């Protein structure tokens, strides 16, 4: 039985070349439900994914950011790093509030989805953005920011992260933002979090995961330029694997055109290091280098 991934097909011809970050954004954009509310992490891939969806697929999706922008029509592109508390990002919003506005609206159940970048995720969907390693190898990261609230309060949380062994770990070094915690039934409720909320999907540049009924990460789809073995080799632990894996389509020309010319023309987010993929009309292949 194939799992319904909730992915609409992309519009337009398949693109001939793109990088994996672009592919990841397009995949998330195709998941966005029309007429639903999104609390998107301020800037980067989550915001580009929602903006792409609104333009191409889900014109009635609305988003807020943690500075209390409600349903803007942003003036694109953003100035570098200026994705919140900025006049372009908040342009033609329906309302302007503050961080407590965003927190309260999500706490009330008004936010259907949260979309987040994360540094590290574990088998129960817990998120680390605080610190990794110990002693000389210790690295300090910036903390949860708005992610703790997004992951706790939105009805469904979509994570975006890279498909790398150090990012898919059995147990995160630090739970900055909650997934299913220890994975036991009712663990979130026992921690005071609202019932019915929690992790929904993880999307990497080449794979998609959902969660089993016992709240464990499950690989459900992969990009055509990778094998399941390649993906699983980039997990520190072995996640559950769906009986039948779906296939993630590559980006379309329409999507890439929008992303490259309007959303992120400076390549702030999408030009960063990630593999390039070539599509020859029949198959996808990862380019050398």
């Amino acid at each position: 039985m194939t799992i319904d991934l909730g992915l609409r097909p992309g519009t337009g011809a398949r693109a001939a070349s793109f990088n994996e970050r672009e592919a990841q954004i397009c995949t998330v954009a195709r998941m966005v439900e029309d007429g639903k509310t999104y609390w998107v992490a301020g800037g980067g891939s989550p915001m580009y994914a929602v903006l792409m969806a609104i333009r191409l697929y889900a014109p009635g999706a609305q988003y807020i950011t943690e500075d209390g922008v409600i349903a803007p029509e942003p003036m694109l592109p953003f100035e570098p790093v200026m994705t919140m508390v900025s006049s372009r990002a908040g342009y033609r919003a329906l309302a302007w509030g503050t961080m407590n506005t965003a927190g309260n609206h999500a706490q009330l159940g008004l936010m259907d989805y949260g979309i987040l970048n994360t540094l590290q995720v574990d088998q129960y969907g817990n998120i680390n953005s605080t610190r990794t390693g110990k002693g000389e190898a210790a690295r300090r990261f910036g903390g949860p920011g708005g992610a703790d609230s997004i992951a706790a309060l939105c009805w469904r949380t979509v994570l975006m992260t890279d498909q790398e062994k150090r990012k898919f770990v059995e147990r995160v070094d630090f739970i900055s933002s909650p997934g299913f915690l220890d994975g036991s039934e009712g663990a979130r409720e026992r921690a005071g979090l609202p019932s019915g909320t929690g992790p929904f999907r993880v999307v990497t540049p080449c794979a998609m995961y959902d969660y089993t009924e016992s709240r464990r990460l499950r690989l459900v789809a992969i990009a055509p330029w990778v094998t399941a073995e390649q993906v699983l080799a980039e997990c520190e632990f072995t996640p559950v694997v769906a009986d039948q894996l779906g296939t993630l389509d590559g980006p379309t020309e329409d999507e890439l055109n929008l992303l490259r010319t309007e959303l992120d023309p400076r390549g702030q987010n999408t030009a960063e290091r990630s593999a390039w993929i070539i599509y020859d009309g029949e198959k996808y292949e990862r380019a050398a280098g």
Partner: protein
Amino acid sequence: MRILAEGAAEYLKVDPDGFRAWVRDHKDRTLTSKLMSARDAVSRFVADGDYLVFDCNYFQRGPSTLLREVIRQKRRDIWLCGKFSYVDVGLLVGAGVVSKLDCGFFWPGATLDNAARDGRVEVFEYSNVVMTLRLQAGAMGLPFLPVRSFGGTDGFERSGAKLVEDPFTGRPITLAPALNPDVALIHVQQSDVYGNARVFGTGIAHQESALASKKVIISAEEIIDTAEIRRDPGRTSIPYYAVDAVVHAPFGAWPGNCGGYYGSDTPGVIEAFGAIARDVVPAYADKYITPFEDDQAMFNAIVGDERLAKLRAAETISEGYRA
């Protein structure tokens, strides 16, 4: 109402009655001009050892001029509220100002890696919203506020929060301790000389920070007449009686942007990132802060009128900003 779990970390003492007494004795209810220089404001109202909150950040309508002044005056042993911050936490840490940090979010980099590893800064773990909620509790004169997030995280263990049995539903609920900082630094678009201040666009917790803090310094792009404040009282974001100092600071958010006034200065932004990515904040301070009497002197010497004029021209959006 049992306590089910509680964080083990130090947190700023919760004392609503003590804060009330401070407010009674120190907050001036008269309409007296509080206009002063950034130097005087920081000199009078930011002390070594203070708990300091700033609103927004070094890049996004934040009190960048005031933060530079804090570094210039070499404040030490500051306990910093690091919510919705950016490079500012790194700049203050790298300049030796900070000894404790409540983390919501900051931009990481070598400066923070090294400071945390060396134990120069003790970090307590929260989230952005939990920190703004703590400020809201402080701004309401309460000892705590409940919150439906934060429970179950490892941050909770390293915080001052408690998980209790809600006496109304019988279910677990997290309580976040109120935060009443010693001093708040807030940059706004407009203020009168008394501190009736207007923020345009979105914000983080400017009102909460102002009401929750013992000492409040406002820096403003424009000083406007009180008559103008009275013409549109719905635009007042912060009332004068919460404010201790008003600093006229054009380009006070540089190199960041200030909605309706100027765009961000990309080279200036990148340079600040670079300083904390490479742990060379002293060099950054030597270029932009320490040699100068104040920001105006720095702008004259380093940035120049032409570049500032370009930043003003780059801000083409006015709808919703200014009155």
